[in-house]
């Protein structure tokens, strides 16, 4: 066992400085399309039309991005004349409630329960990463808890497939008040490319009240951290 202790120590500290400092290592986030001005309404329409999920819409020259629908397919920036510019960053979480409602419920620690409502695996993989040494949520007082009975936050990924509706309802009901629901990824936020259909809903808000949405396909770990900090009241709303 000693060799493992040594190995752990030798590896050094990998943990990000976020939220105290900005993290800027390459590859932490795929980025996302940013709203932009085109030369003319027709060009704007053509660019917006390339989006297969309807995340882009144009008003005159302006292309707006509905990040809730964006699945990062990258088609808006692929070798066309008018490629959309993508912005970096990862502070993507957004609240669905007024800031006053969110504040002060949790200030010290947060216990997190994760529920897979039909996620493809990428969101879950990013959720797994938040407790790895690189992101290490424990240092912020966030913990993953095995049962909803002791959970403050429910992270839900996936478009909400029909068989997961009952487990989600039960899981939400089993959590004590006060509680928060975070929708992780485009699927959970809007149904993504899967919902609504005969088998899946258009996001989890059709079943439980969502407090915070993290768009992205998948949202990178730092976006998840941002959302959790938001729940804990340790960050300003974006």
């Amino acid at each position, binding site marked *: 066992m000693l060799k493992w202790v040594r190995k752990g120590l030798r590896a050094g500290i990998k943990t990000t400085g976020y939220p105290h400092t900005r993290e800027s290592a390459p590859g932490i986030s795929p980025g996302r399309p940013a709203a932009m001005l085109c030369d003319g309404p027709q060009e704007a329409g053509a660019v917006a039309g390339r989006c297969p999920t309807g995340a882009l819409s144009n008003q005159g020259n302006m292309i707006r991005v509905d990040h809730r629908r964006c699945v990062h397919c990258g088609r808006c920036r692929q070798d066309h004349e008018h490629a959309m510019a993508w912005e970096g960053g990862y502070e993507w979480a957004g609240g669905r409630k007024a800031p006053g409602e969110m504040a002060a419920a949790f200030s010290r620690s947060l216990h997190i329960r994760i529920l897979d409502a039909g996620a*493809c695996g990428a969101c879950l993989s990013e959720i797994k990463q938040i407790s790895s040494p690189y992101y290490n949520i424990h240092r912020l007082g966030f913990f993953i808890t095995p049962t909803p009975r002791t959970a403050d936050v429910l992270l839900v990924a996936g478009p909400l497939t029909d068989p997961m509706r009952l487990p989600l309802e039960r899981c939400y009901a089993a959590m004590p008040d006060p509680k928060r629901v975070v929708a992780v990824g485009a699927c959970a936020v809007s149904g993504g490319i899967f919902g609504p259909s005969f088998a899946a809903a258009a996001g989890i808000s059709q079943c439980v009240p969502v407090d915070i949405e993290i768009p992205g396909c998948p949202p990178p770990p730092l976006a998840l951290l941002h959302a959790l900090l938001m729940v804990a009241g340790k960050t300003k709303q974006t």
Partner: protein
Amino acid sequence: MGPTLNNVLKFTDLPRMVASRWGDSLEIKIDQERQLIQITCDPEVLQDLCQWLFYRQGYSLATLIAEEAPPEWVMRYILYGDTGNGQVHVLTRFPLSRTKVPSISPAIHAADWQEREIEDLFGLSFEGHPKLGDFILHEDWPEGASPMRTAFDASRLHPRQESGPPWRPEMIVKTPGAFMMPVGPVYSDTAESAHFLLETVGEDVVRTIPKFFYKYRGVEKIAEGMPADHALLLAERFSGSSAFAHSLAFCQALEAICKIQAPPRARALRVLLAEMERLRHHTAAVAGICSSTALAVAASQTSIIEEDLLRLTCRLAGHRYFFGLNTPGGLARDLPDGECKKASEAAWIVLDKLKELHEMLRFTSSFLDRLEEVGSVSRKKAVAYGLVGPVARASGVSRDLRVAQPYAGYGQQTKFQVPREAEGDGYARLRVLFAEAEQSVNLIHQVASTLPAGPVRTAAAPTEGCALGWAEAPRGAAFHWLRTDGSGNIRRYRVMPPSFVNWHGFHLAAEEFAFQDFPIIMATFGLSNAECDR
């Protein structure tokens, strides 16, 4: 590693042998270019023929496809052989009014779940299959509604039965005191949703009853009528952890329909990217095994490597999970040579770290005790269940689509080995993962140092037709079968992912071991429910 003389003979001989056995009732077509034999037969000889191909000729079952082609049903059984043996498509047709099909699963157990799936989704009934009933659609799904029939409206949520009876499978362990231990569908960690009932008398799991498809998103159904490049999003995103392999198989199916080939540079880059995905996946699987045995430092160190690979992928491909890269006809974007070289160097460093980890794990007895001789699958069972990927290779079945049915840049240009272990236990699966990761880094290096120049995309015009695309995904053989109409929209889409096949055989490993071994065996299988459920 080209086709051996024997195999070539077998492939050319096969039509004659089939004809001599089953006479003129068959219609045999040979497509030399695609190495494909298409046999149309009566439903009556189906089981015999498939059994002969599977057990006597060594063909593996890829998938079963039911297709509604008024005025008849077309059932397509796709089998594939080793290098040079090509594929055999067995077709059988019968009128739409008929709903009974002879089952082949009494002979080929690998077809068991596939038949159950078709029974559930199409309302066809397989005669001779002993275990039909709720499978994909759970107990609250109204009887009689078959979502894969063309008449079914897939756009709206189908009304469910309000108070269906609770799921109560029959207990087959007939020992006093036996009971069922429910596990899931919501786990205590980040595991994917699936439900197991473990029949037990207290310590050992005697029988595993899995209930999957909590994550059924009906990908095959909602793809129908979509433009192909829109359906590509589904193929790419139904299993995010093996997105590149599945989008690759999908694109190759479309390319086969359009009768085009991706340019050499795209084919080479596809190998590079697919191997990077395999490397990432296997690293994550090792991390899962380490954390299932509560070896915290090893799990953390492996997840550091995993995150390194995710960041590397993002720098190289613009996305941490390879989304949006494959496109029919090639790649959506060219990757600069320099970046590929850097990636290959980074992969070497990752390999060094993995090797060091493997070396340390090999000498951690508390870790080995949990893996060795735990969760064993015999070679015979692995063949009967048609297992694929690292799981099958750990049980001595060394079939790998990259060798058996070369695609993209695999085949002549690249050299690699298919690792194989004989024991079939958890430790064998772990060793296969490490060995495959090494081969992947090897391949990345080969490709990055010999990247051909040129374009990365061939234009594809919408064509009507059907074809099979395949790829050796990180978890094993993945098959995507497509039928498009003249405007390039999808008419029928069939995905057979490796997780579906391997979950079918999971119970072989999980039984006769203690409860506490269950999560470890699950981790050594390294399967994805998203991939299985689609």
